[in-house]
Each structure stands twice: as C-alpha cells, then as structure tokens.
C-alpha cells in the first residue's frame, strides 16, 4: 500500500478500518488529557503521586498518537520509522536527562538548592 494513494474508495472496509485507528487515537487522547488536568487541578492524590501519574499519562498519550496519527506500529512497512524513532528517543534520554543531571549537579555545588 502506498503512502498517498489507495486503489480503494472511501466506502471500502479498509478506509473504515484506517479511520477507526484515528478515532481511537483521538478519543483516548482526549480522555488522557482530561485525566491529567483533573489530577493536576483536583488534589485527589498527594502532589508527588499526582506528578508521577501525570507523567505516565503523557507518555501513554505520546505512544498512542505515534500509533494512531503517525502510523507507527510493528508492521514491516513502519519498521524503518520505528527504528528511527527509537534511536531518537535513545538520544533524547541521553542528552536531555544528561543536561538536567549536569545542570542540577552544578546548581547544588553552587549552593542554589539541592538535587
């Protein structure tokens, strides 16, 4: 199947199947977003616990949107994209977490507050 053209029309089962993926992604994203807002605003859990859950919800929504909207999955077609994304996240974890670590260490040595 090509990226930009299908031989089938909008009344085909394939179209409806593909559309369902978008609808699921959209519905789940809305639920996860609103859950995050309620947790951040509501004071249901302790601040630390709410912070962690909100973070997990964000990661879940990130995975869902890559799957639903950017067609990332375990299929052979999406494999090169998947490897690229996974390698990118490896770089992000190393570089972003490393940056926060070094700057926080520096701040604590400068007496600007603990790590």
């Amino acid at each position, binding site marked *: *199947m*090509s*990226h*930009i*053209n*299908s*031989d*089938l*029309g*909008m009344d*085909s089962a*394939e*179209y409806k199947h*593909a*559309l369902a993926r*978008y609808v699921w*992604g*959209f519905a789940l*994203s*809305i639920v996860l*977003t609103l859950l*995050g*807002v309620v*947790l*951040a*605003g509501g004071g249901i859990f302790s*601040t630390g616990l*709410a*912070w962690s859950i*909100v*973070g997990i*919800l*964000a990661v879940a*929504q*990130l995975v869902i*949107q*890559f799957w*639903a*909207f*950017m067609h990332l999955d375990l299929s052979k077609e999406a494999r*090169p*994209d998947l490897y*690229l*994304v996974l390698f*990118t996240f490896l*770089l*992000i974890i190393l*570089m*972003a*977490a490393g*940056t*926060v670590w070094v*700057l*926080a260490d520096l*701040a604590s040595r400068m007496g*600007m*507050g603990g790590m």
Partner: protein
Amino acid sequence: MSATMTHEGAVHTASHDHGHHDKTGTVIFGFWIFLMSDLIAFSLMIANYADAEWHGIANGPSPHELFSLGLPTIETMALLISTFTFGLCTLGMKYGASMKRTVFWLVVTLALGAIFLGIELYEFHEFWTEGNTPQVSGFLTAYYSLVGLHGLHVTSGIIWGILLMVQMKTFGMNDLMKSRLVRLGLFWHMLDIVWIALFTKVYLMGVLS
C-alpha cells in the same frame, strides 16, 4: 498515476504501487528524519526549561504562581482536535476524496491551529503586561523560548498549509501535492505530540510544583 488507479488488475496495480511507494516512501522517510531532529531540539529546550524552572526562579513568580489550567486546557483541546481533523484530511485524500473535502478539512485544521496560537499569544500578553517578561528570571526566559518555539512551528505550519492550498488549486491534486500534504500532516501530528510534553511539563507539572 490517476489512470492506473482505475485499473482493476491487482497484479498490475500492486507492481505499480511498489515502484511508486519506493520514491514517495523515500521522500517521506527523509521528512521523518527532519522531524526527529526537530524533536531532539525540542527535548533539549525542555531539559533547559526543567533546570530553569528548578533553579532559576530568581525574584520572579514560580510556575505554580504563574500558571492556571483553564486556557491551556482549551488550547490543548484545539490542537488535539486539529491533529484529528488533519488525519481526516490526509486519510480521505489517500482514499480518493474530492479536493473540496480535502481542502475543507485542511482549512478546519489550520483554523484550529490559529485558535491555539491566539490563546497562546493572549497568555503571553497577559503575563507580559503583569510584568512577567523574559528578563525577570531564567524560568520566564525558558518559558517564553520553549512555548514560543512551539508557537513558531505552528505558525510556519499554518503558512505552509495556506501555500499548499494555493498550489493545490493551481496544479490540481497530483501525486506531488498529495506527498506534500502527507508531509505537512506528519509535521502537524508531530507538533501535537510535542505539545503533550509541553502541556504536561510546563502547565500540569507546573501547577503541581
């Protein structure tokens, strides 16, 4: 290509699709590489923000004092709906939707992007007139640059979309236009994925801090 699309022969179209897939697929994969490098840039801006928010409050407000969730939530919903409507646009296009339908969903998407941008600029203006300018603290510098960088991306996406509509009207819905629309779609979906991270880190976790 459009002539081949009407052929019923599965073997013929399959082989044709394969050859076509390779060319368009390569261009789209190249665009993925750009998107991922952009994602790394965003992630480092977030890392910078995380540090500034932690150690760079100075005499300015903390995130907890500055942010409320009302407007950012509406803003988030606008962008979330827009990423879905862009999906409707590109998915329909792939399955032979009329240009009218494709343009309609693209216009809806860009309008939602403009609403998102309007709310963001309104918030910037509010903070600014309260005296919370980027000069006040490292946290505010990082806030304006991180959220502003995302806003610039949305702005360029809107301009890109408008230019693409002009091209589509001029050249018709050919394969090149379709490939460009798919790439703009990936760009737009990526921006919403980046916004999940920004909304969570800046606003949700900011209010919780």
